């Protein structure tokens, strides 16, 4: 028998973070393979086809969009670090988005001045306070390893004295990148504030496939390997060090280090009992129901003119696992047609996201799953009635997915899209050659995940 294959690094999971990390490692000559359980890449931001429609699992918008030349933005860091040409992502900026609460709407675009004006117009007493908050955010360094842990709610309300404005500013940031119930880590808040308000939204005309294709091309060019349908059953440890992994089919692959992007608890679960030294982190509880509605006519002509609408029917925005199966009193509405593409998209799609209770959807009788989904989808449209037309009789294609779908396809415990509230900002674990990137390292969303993969690869595996 020849000596078994040995890799410098095995990356577990071919989501955005794992792919980005593997590109960096392969580019600098490491022998690396990405092991993905599923038959395709993308993870939480993957894609599928149904009834002749090409659909994205998650993508609403790519955050951190900055005009060409602004090289300090996270997005241009990613392009440079991965040696990807910005045009390869084919990003088109949003037209406009809004935060809509009872009686007040704040519109925003990729030009931050728009939000500043909206705040000044709707909350005249908060104009200077808002400026002060923004100044503090611009001066913060959330990526610094020792950035302090603080409550974002406290930080915001220490400056903003109008509670409604504080809620409105927090809601989008929580929806797009917060694993914690009710509050948010200030560091996460700063990152999300920059990526959504100070930078902004964009979308590839062809959706997430455009981004994944670019990543796969670069991985291939750099000599990195991708193994699909290669779920990792166990991380193999001897004498306190990782030496390889065992796949679902019981085959083994040896390596010098493992970089896991599947989540902290999910990683601990595949490590041998004896190596689990960490104090058990909390499980994430925030999960979502998402509906993909394709209409028989243009949502824009029905009056839906925003790319993304973050709405709440309550002045006090509640970001926690709901008591009922789905909380339809707040949510996110996305209309992919409302980005400025070179050529109009006209896909007539409306996506709606609401918070959902994982346990309800996981334990549901399979016969009940579809009717319950339809019922809650209908209620979700009723819940958004103040912010969008009733599209129920115009839907020609509908797909709804619940936390259970997310858990099935990506392995995230509780279907918690943003993972555990206990983040491991350092990316290190109890084992010296096992590292974490992606969801539970701390940077969230598509851009955050890629940045996470890049920075953990740089910090530990490219020294």
């Amino acid at each position: 028998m020849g000596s078994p294959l040995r890799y410098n690094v095995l990356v577990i999971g071919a989501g955005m973070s794992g792919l980005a990390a593997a590109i960096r490692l392969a580019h600098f000559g490491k022998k690396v393979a990405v092991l993905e359980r599923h038959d395709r890449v993308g993870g939480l931001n993957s894609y599928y086809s149904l009834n002749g429609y090409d659909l994205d699992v998650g993508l609403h918008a790519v955050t951190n969009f900055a005009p060409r030349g602004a090289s300090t933005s996270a997005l241009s860091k990613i392009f440079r670090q991965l040696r990807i040409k910005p045009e390869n992502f084919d990003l088109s900026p949003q037209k406009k988005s809004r935060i809509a609460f009872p009686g007040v709407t704040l519109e925003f675009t990729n030009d931050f001045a728009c939000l500043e004006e909206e705040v000044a117009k709707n909350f005249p007493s908060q104009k200077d306070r808002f400026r002060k908050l923004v100044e503090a955010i611009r001066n913060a360094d959330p990526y610094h390893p020792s950035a302090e842990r603080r409550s974002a709610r406290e930080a915001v309300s220490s400056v903003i004295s109008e509670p409604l404005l504080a809620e409105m500013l927090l809601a989008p940031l929580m929806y797009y990148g917060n694993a914690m119930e009710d509050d948010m880590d200030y560091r996460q808040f700063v990152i999300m504030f920059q990526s959504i308000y100070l930078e902004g939204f964009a979308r590839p005309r062809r959706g997430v496939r455009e981004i994944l294709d670019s990543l796969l091309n670069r991985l291939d060019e750099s000599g990195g390997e991708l193994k699909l349908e290669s779920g990792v059953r166990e991380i193999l440890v001897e004498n306190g060090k990782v030496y390889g992994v065992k796949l679902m089919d019981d085959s083994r692959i040896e390596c010098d280090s493992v970089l896991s992007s599947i989540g902290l608890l999910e990683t601990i679960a595949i490590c041998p009992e004896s190596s689990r030294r960490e104090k058990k982190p909390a499980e994430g509880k925030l999960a979502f129901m998402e509906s993909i509605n394709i209409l028989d006519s243009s949502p824009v002509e029905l009056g839906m003119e925003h790319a993304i609408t973050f709405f709440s029917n309550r002045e006090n925005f509640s970001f926690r696992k709901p008591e009922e199966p789905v909380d339809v009193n707040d949510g996110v509405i996305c209309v992919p047609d409302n980005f400025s593409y070179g050529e109009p998209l006209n896909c007539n799609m409306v996506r709606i996201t609401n918070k959902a209770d994982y346990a309800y959807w996981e334990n549901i009788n399979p016969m009940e799953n579809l009717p319950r989904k339809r019922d809650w989808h209908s209620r979700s449209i009723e819940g958004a009635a103040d912010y969008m037309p009733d599209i129920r009789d115009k839907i020609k294609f509908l797909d709804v997915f619940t936390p259970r779908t997310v858990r099935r396809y990506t392995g995230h415990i509780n279907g918690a899209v943003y993972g555990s509230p206990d983040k491991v900002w350092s990316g290190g674990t109890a084992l010296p050659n096992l590292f974490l990137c992606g969801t539970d390292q701390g940077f969230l969303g598509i851009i955050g995940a890629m940045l996470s993969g890049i920075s953990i690869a740089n910090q530990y595996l490219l020294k």
Partner: protein
Amino acid sequence: MSKSQLRSIVTDIIKSIAPDEDLSSLDPEKPLRAQIDLDSMDFLDIVMELRVRYNIDVPEADYPQLNSLASTVNYLMPRMQGV
């Protein structure tokens, strides 16, 4: 290896990292980072590209010598013989 060859080795590396920067009017004597937008991550990538492409290890203590194009070329000159 001549100075001009070394210069194009360095500019090729910078171009691969920051393709959107215009390097045609670079003043070789002035600090690189004063003329083009290179952050510390980009700078570290120059060092890493030198290592993978030409097997040259630049210890951290020597980073200041990569300040301008001219100083980088001077630094690399004795180290690139035989490459």
